[in-house]
């Protein structure tokens, strides 16, 4: 059961802000990047916390704090601390710290590299910071699978609870790669949009727009949540994951392994394509991803059924948050289910004749379930390296 949500995104700090602004068709992208311009560390963290955390971990701590507060954990942990896990993903880790300390080494010598370098840039630093902040003493680790990391973290958290290893898990993903070196690396791959516009599934799409931020969720075991009277926001009911084993960066073009991840998630949830009311797409705005994802959805859901389900991309509003994307998009999906609203794919204006699903152009629309049952959505994440993750989420 999901009992808490938190985000830091280019649309602002706070999950409610993300939903409200995305559903209103507002974009957090400026000058070709999705920076968290409103985020001021001192508003949320002590001097000591802020200087000991790379920006990605700062995002993780702030998003998790919001999620714990919403879950009603502010006055104390509701379970034995050794039974609360923490799984936080990142695609890259503390790249800003690496750059700063590398400069220090070149300018002043190796002896002057900060002792805080490693604890800031290690990819598990976000998980460690969140666990330390709240005293979470169960299984705790980082997840590393590039742009699928956030979704893998949620899947791992789900399994930890289902296996009985934890009563609750704080999970999510965080990323902060808007640095000179970060842009240089992604630019040299020709992955980024030269026009600086995120327009997933549109015929003119020309690459992704890099963003930063974090998403966090509190997952609690269903009976335990009920026993303590927790307010349930939604439920993670299915998780499927596969690997393309095809190419370092390009998705397998038939969408075969990706479609299998969706099928596995549906099977895990015990549902069929008829039960799905909304797809929160990975939708990066690259030529290859959006074509392969469309193919995967049609394979997994059936071409006719796939065309009936609204598919929209959060990345159209905030850009691609890499290892945070899956978590932020799961939070966005939960809120779509809560509010029964499908936010739109921004900037989708020119249909690609090859991509023929309903990408929710223009503006948000009501999320309809047909027969009044709780709405169900899929959230997809795919990644450099060939990682495919699909989550199935059910509203209440």
């Amino acid at each position, binding site marked *: 059961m999901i009992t808490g949500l938190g985000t830091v995104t280019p649309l602002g700090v706070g999950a409610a802000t993300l939903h409200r602004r995305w559903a209103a068709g507002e974009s957090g992208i400026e000058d070709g990047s999705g920076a968290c311009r409103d985020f001021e560390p001192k508003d949320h963290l002590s001097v*000591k916390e802020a200087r000991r955390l790379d920006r990605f971990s700062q995002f993780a701590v702030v998003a998790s704090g919001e999620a714990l507060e919403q879950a009603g954990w502010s006055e104390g942990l509701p379970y034995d601390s050794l039974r609360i896990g923490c799984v936080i993903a990142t695609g890259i880790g503390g790249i800003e710290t690496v750059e700063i300390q590398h400069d220090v080494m070149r300018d002043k010598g190796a002896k002057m590299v900060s002792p805080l370098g490693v604890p800031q840039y290690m990819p598990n630093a976000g998980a460690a910071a969140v666990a330390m902040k709240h005293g979470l003493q169960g299984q705790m680790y980082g997840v590393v699978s590039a742009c699928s990391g956030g979704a893998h973290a949620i899947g791992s958290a789900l399994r930890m609870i289902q296996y009985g290893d934890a009563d609750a898990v704080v999970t999510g993903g965080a990323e902060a790669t808007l640095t000179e070196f970060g842009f240089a690396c992604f630019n040299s791959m020709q992955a980024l949009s030269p026009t600086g516009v995120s327009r997933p599934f549109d015929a003119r799409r020309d690459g992704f727009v890099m963003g930063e931020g974090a998403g966090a969720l509190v997952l609690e075991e269903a009976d335990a949540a009920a026993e303590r009277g927790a307010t349930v926001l939604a439920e993670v009911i299915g998780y499927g994951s596969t690997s393309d084993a095809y190419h370092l960066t390009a998705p397998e073009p038939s969408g075969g392994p990706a479609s299998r991840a969706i099928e596995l998630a549906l099977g895990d949830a015990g549902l069929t394509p008829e039960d799905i009311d909304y797809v929160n797409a990975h939708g990066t705005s690259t030529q290859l991803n959006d074509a392969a994802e469309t193919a995967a959805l049609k394979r997994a859901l059936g071409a006719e059924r796939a065309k009936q389900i609204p598919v929209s991309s959060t990345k159209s509003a905030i850009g691609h948050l890499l290892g945070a994307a899956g978590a932020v998009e799961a939070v966005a999906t939960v809120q779509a289910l809560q509010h029964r609203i499908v936010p739109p794919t921004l900037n989708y204006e020119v249909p690609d004749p090859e991509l023929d699903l309903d990408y929710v152009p223009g503006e948000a629309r009501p999320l309809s379930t047909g027969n009044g049952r709780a709405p169900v959505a899929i959230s997809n994440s795919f990644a450099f390296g060939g990682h495919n993750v699909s989550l199935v989420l059910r509203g209440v």
Partner: protein
Amino acid sequence: MSTVTNEQVEARVVEALASFGPDPSQITRDATFEELDIDSLDLVELAQIVEDEYGVVLKGEDMKELKTVGDAVDLIVSRA
């Protein structure tokens, strides 16, 4: 031969420690690093600042003996 005064070093040490997080008003000569929540990572950073500014090399075993802000100031001044 010392070229820096006790007061100069103390001011620099207080400034450095304050940047690590504790409230500046609590950073007195008698304040302990434990009270100020200054840990071993902070002390390595302090040693780097001291070496950069005064050319005084403080090693791990030197730092272990330090309990208070005054201890650190005295050690630095004695070696500067």
